[in-house]
């Protein structure tokens, strides 16, 4: 693995298990960062391919608590990042329920970056997709003009300030960066592989901008309770 995060992530693991003891993901999933370190150190391609196709690598929350407490300064969270990168590049992410969620994340976060200049934006947080945002958020959204004016927001306006309009020129620069660095290729790969999987699963995936398609809804909401527990 040529990923610099792999080089930084594992040097001489002593298999002490501290990372697993502190891991928030290990509390809710059958997931052990220590096992991840063990498996990649086997350098067995079959084992690693199975890992790349599994739900396991998608359980981590990338909080990086494992990095703090490791006596050898390893970071299983960084190994996970390198493994997920490989899983996307090889198209293996569509083999697992949690990996298939990449399509929803690409459309929610990835597309938002290129459309608004930010990962999260005022209008990309609808209450029906994020009900825990609560009735206060509905009230803010319903009265956006007045409330945002009161606290000095700059929604969709020129100049600086929160949630301002990002100019066309700036968005073009962002897109160009995504093109030359492989970001757009990732987006395409996620869309293409997901289309293939949706067809295999005989679901109507909808067109590219249709986030209400059956496939999107399925990956966004479905959680196999029996499988994804401790």
């Amino acid at each position, binding site marked *: 693995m040529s990923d610099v995060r792999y080089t930084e992530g594992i040097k001489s693991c002593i298999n002490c298990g501290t990372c697993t003891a502190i891991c928030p993901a290990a509390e809710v999933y059958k997931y052990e960062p220590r096992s991840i370190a063990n498996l990649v150190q086997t350098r067995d391609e079959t084992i690693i391919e199975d890992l790349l196709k599994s739900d396991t690598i998608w359980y981590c929350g*990338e909080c990086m608590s494992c990095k703090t407490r490791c006596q050898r300064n390893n970071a299983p969270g960084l190994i996970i990042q390198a493994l997920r990168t490989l899983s996307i590049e090889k198209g293996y992410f569509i083999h697992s329920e949690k990996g298939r969620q990449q399509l929803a994340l690409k459309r929610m976060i990835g597309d938002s970056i290129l459309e608004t*200049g930010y*990962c999260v934006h005022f209008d990309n947080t609808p209450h029906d997709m994020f009900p825990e945002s609560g009735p206060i958020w509905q009230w803010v959204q319903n009265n956006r003009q007045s409330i945002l*004016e009161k606290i*000095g927001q700059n929604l969709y306006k020129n100049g600086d300030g929160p*949630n*301002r309009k990002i100019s066309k020129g700036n968005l073009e620069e962002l897109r160009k960066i995504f093109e030359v660095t492989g970001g757009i290729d*990732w987006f395409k790969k996620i869309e293409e592989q997901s289309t293939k999987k949706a067809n295999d699963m005989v679901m109507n995936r909808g067109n590219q901008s249709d986030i209400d398609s059956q496939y999107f809804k399925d990956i966004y909401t479905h959680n196999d309770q029996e499988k994804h527990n401790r």
Partner: protein
Amino acid sequence: MKQEGKKHIWSNYQKEIAEDRYFYVRSCIRQTFFPGSENTFLKILREVLGKDVHESPNHTTCTGIGYHCEVVPFATTQTVVARNFALMRDAGYQNYTPSCVTSFGIYTEILDTWQHFPAEKEKTRAFLKQATGREFEEPNSLAHTSDIIYKFRNEIAQKAKYQLINSETGEPLKIVEHIGCHYAKMFPEKSVGGAEYPNVLAGMIDAWGGNVIDYPERRHCCGFGFRQYLIQANRGYSMSASKKKFESMEAYQPDFIITNCPGCNYFLDRWQYVLAETEQKTYGSNGYGIPVLTYEEVAGLVLGFDPWEMGMQMHQIDVEPLLKKMGIKYNASEKFKGPQGQELGLPEFPEHVKFTTQSDN
């Protein structure tokens, strides 16, 4: 551990924070859910402390959330970050100051990567030139915005109108401080106080008269976990982590929680609401939740800023019990009104966690 021992450990993690001339970049989450906090930071720096803070309308996300969801490759994130550094250089500034803790983590990770793998930096330089024609330089200093408020905590204390003290009993308020994971867990030496004993928020609490609560799950993650919240199917992970913290801090009867990460602020606020509505469990006193404040809001309250102009009515867990406890003079009837006092109607109130209505005041 005794206080003296902690001070000794903190001495190993002191951080140089620039005195003035900051290049400020906004946060995806903070500017959306707590935009008043970002404006409060700028008001404190510019109007109270007289500092030069520059914001370029051309800056964008660092892509951090996309990077940690694996929809943005590392090379792309490095180049977007390099573009933001280029904007700073072009504006004539050298002290980079992000509002977001995820971003702060991204910047520390990338600067560390460039130090250990110079080829990554050169690759990024070539990508940026090819895509935008821009050139960048690394910042002279990198400080999260909470580092800056920490640096000037004593100056703020000198100008304080209120203290973190219960105005009725005269006792210091009991305060939970929650540090975003990416502030110090990856690169402790880049923080104030390190990952085990970060002092960035505790220092503010001490300076402004409050007492810090040391509770068992003090360093546990809020549970954002990026994909673990953004995808509805995964949210059990997110809520479980927050619940673990609430259960652990409950016995210490905190008056409020202060955070330095926009995501943590949102989750510790909203998951209390969800836990109340689904499990009929509240963690504050008398059926209220525990108010969750940004450090900008806390600094603003101490300085006597208007809570509604800081956007504190955008919290789902009501902040009014805290305002009353601190003896703050505020206009309760303005809470849900527009900028010229116009009626906007009231939000729907939660069923199982108390929320002050106008008739309560």
